[in-house]
């Protein structure tokens, strides 16, 4: 019955919470709960995604968010983001240089030989996507033996602490525009200021950095397929740990306070005819986010390039339109609004029926 459905809401909500909790625990005695460390390590990419879309670098709480949301990426990021709302912004970090990243992976698609060399690292790029049936019944002993085997006989240092950036060599050759130090704006904090268009590039980058992976990918893909013409080359994609520096509270000296796992991607796009510039150069697109999220970083870099073009020449495609891209890539916003349609809309529907009936009556009267 229509009206009763919205009565007794309190009890229904409690019941729903219990039903969901039962879903989480229904393995009962035969299982033990997921521990947050296991989530961080064994659901590594899921965990990375939540760190990034949640917009808060807190590995343990990201695991907790995954656990309590039963692995729903949108819900988990949401919980992390809502937790973030309760925290004031106390300090600002200076601009960080990703040359200092401790890398686990870096590749370039533009050159075979890059200074420091290509390092594939952990990737599924060249893996055969065949189901590994032996993992179906993997025993703890088998599981533990693998790491032991992989660590055995490793030299202590195989990877240097840092690698030079591919872009530096392109820049040295004059193929890229020089960095305009004077134009370096104060970064825009999207958590403290609303987006009012036109927005600075830093606001666009920050919005995409915590954007939803699938949304970024879909819009970037539209550009790749032909609704746009970025035609990027991945100059460098790197994944690793960036030391985070903060000024010491007393001495003011920059001090390392920890490190964040992040993915960074720089794409080089074909040069554009620009009347104001005498020497044509390649153009750049930049993507970076918390965690190990390569598809997201690449999508973001392509969109950054597309948006810069759109801001300069006016958007010709959705992916070049800052409003279209930036207001539709946030997973918390879009999933919230999609879900809200499940709430009662009795009043507005009553209004809709009133309009439709009146219009129908008028039409019928007109036909008589």
């Amino acid at each position, binding site marked *: 019955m229509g009206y009763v459905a*919205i009565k*007794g809401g309190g009890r*229904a909500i409690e019941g729903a919470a219990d039903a969901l909790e039962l879903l989480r625990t229904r393995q009962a005695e035969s299982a033990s709960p997921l521990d947050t460390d296991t989530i961080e390590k064994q659901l590594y990419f899921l965990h990375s995604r939540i760190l990034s879309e949640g917009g808060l670098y807190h590995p343990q709480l990201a695991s907790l968010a995954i656990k309590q949301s039963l692995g729903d990426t949108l819900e988990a990021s949401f919980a992390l983001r809502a937790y973030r709302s309760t925290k004031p912004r106390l300090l600002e970090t200076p601009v960080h240089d990703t040359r200092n990243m401790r890398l686990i992976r870096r590749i370039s698609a533009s050159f075979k030989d890059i200074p420091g060399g290509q390092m594939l690292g952990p990737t599924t790029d060249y893996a055969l996507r065949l189901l590994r049936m032996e993992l179906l019944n993997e025993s703890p002993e088998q599981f533990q033996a693998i790491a032991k085997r992989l660590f055995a006989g490793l030299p202590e240092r195989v990877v240097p602490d840092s690698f030079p950036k591919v872009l530096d060599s392109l820049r040295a050759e004059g193929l890229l525009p020089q960095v305009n130090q004077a134009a370096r704006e104060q970064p825009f904090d999207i958590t403290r200021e609303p987006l009012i268009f036109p927005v600075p590039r830093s606001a666009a980058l920050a919005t995409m950095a915590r954007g939803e992976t699938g949304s970024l990918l879909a819009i970037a893909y539209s550009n790749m397929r032909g609704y746009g013409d970025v035609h990027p080359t991945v100059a460098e994609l790197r994944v690793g740990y960036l030391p985070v520096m903060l000024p010491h509270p007393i001495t003011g000296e920059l001090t390392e306070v920890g490190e964040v796992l992040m993915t960074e991607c720089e794409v080089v796009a074909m040069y554009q005819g620009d009347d104001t510039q005498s020497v044509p150069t390649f153009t750049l697109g930049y993507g970076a986010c918390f965690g190990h999220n390569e598809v997201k970083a690449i999508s973001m870099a392509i969109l950054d390039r597309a948006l810069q073009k759109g801001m300069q020449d006016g958007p010709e495609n959705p992916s070049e339109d800052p409003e279209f891209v930036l207001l539709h890539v946030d997973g918390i916003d879009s999933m919230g609004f999609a879900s*809200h349609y499940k709430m009662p809309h009795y009043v507005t529907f009553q209004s809709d029926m009133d309009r439709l009936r009146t219009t129908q009556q*008028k039409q019928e009267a007109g036909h008589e």
Partner: protein
Amino acid sequence: MSNGINFAFLDEYAKREIRRSLIKAICIPGYQVPYSSREMPMGRGFGTGGLQLTLALIGADDTLKVIDQGSDDSVNAVNLRKFIEMTCPGIATTTRLQEATLIQSRHRIPEQALRADQILVLQVPYPDALVIVEPSEDKRKIMHGEADYSRLLVKLYEDIVKFDEITISHRYPTRINGHYIIDPSPIPRYDVPKLHNSKALILFGAGREKKIYAVPPHCLAEPLAFDDVPFRIEDFSDSHGERRACKLCGSKTSFLDEFIDEQGVRVYQCSDSDYCEQQQECAHG
């Protein structure tokens, strides 16, 4: 509070920012003030804009009423009220309009008139009435600044040409203080006249779209219409032209919910459950 969460959930900086935006919104009636809008622990679209306003305004001596679809007991109203009670220890809550100092509502303005010492917070999914004619926020901002609402008027005109009726059912574009046209949130047309010359301050919070706007007390609020095609509220008359009454309290003036009862009969009932109960109490008492 446990979990180390601040009173009213938000940190003090966030609350202060919202209050600053609020003052601006009151000073420029109907103007959409952008604000940063924090993520709340409930879905964007479930009233996070209204919730942030409520949390920025509420103090321990406030009495809060939360309604959704006119009812204090609908799932979303219960959910919001529970959250506010949990994060704001010391506040009182009520379902009686007269007892409340702060009222948060979705889709309805209460039947009974609000007082000058009450504040109504409405939850807003789409803050901009122009969105039905212009998708770009940047362009809409210019149109608002110039009070250029010609395309909205054309939309109304086209409705009349096509359907002989203005088809906008709810979220009816309303001009505030002679300049800005607002989306008054998805209240029915029945509620729009209550915005006009209201004694209470009426606030609008759009969390996902990150906007706050206001209709201050004793302010002009005029639904968009033409001289020869007046604005009309929902029609609750039956086939004989008689105004339908609430089956519980018998009110013939309230906004009604229509539904099919267990016998398969179409029945009507007040949408504002508090008003309906008070009417019944009066009748019995």
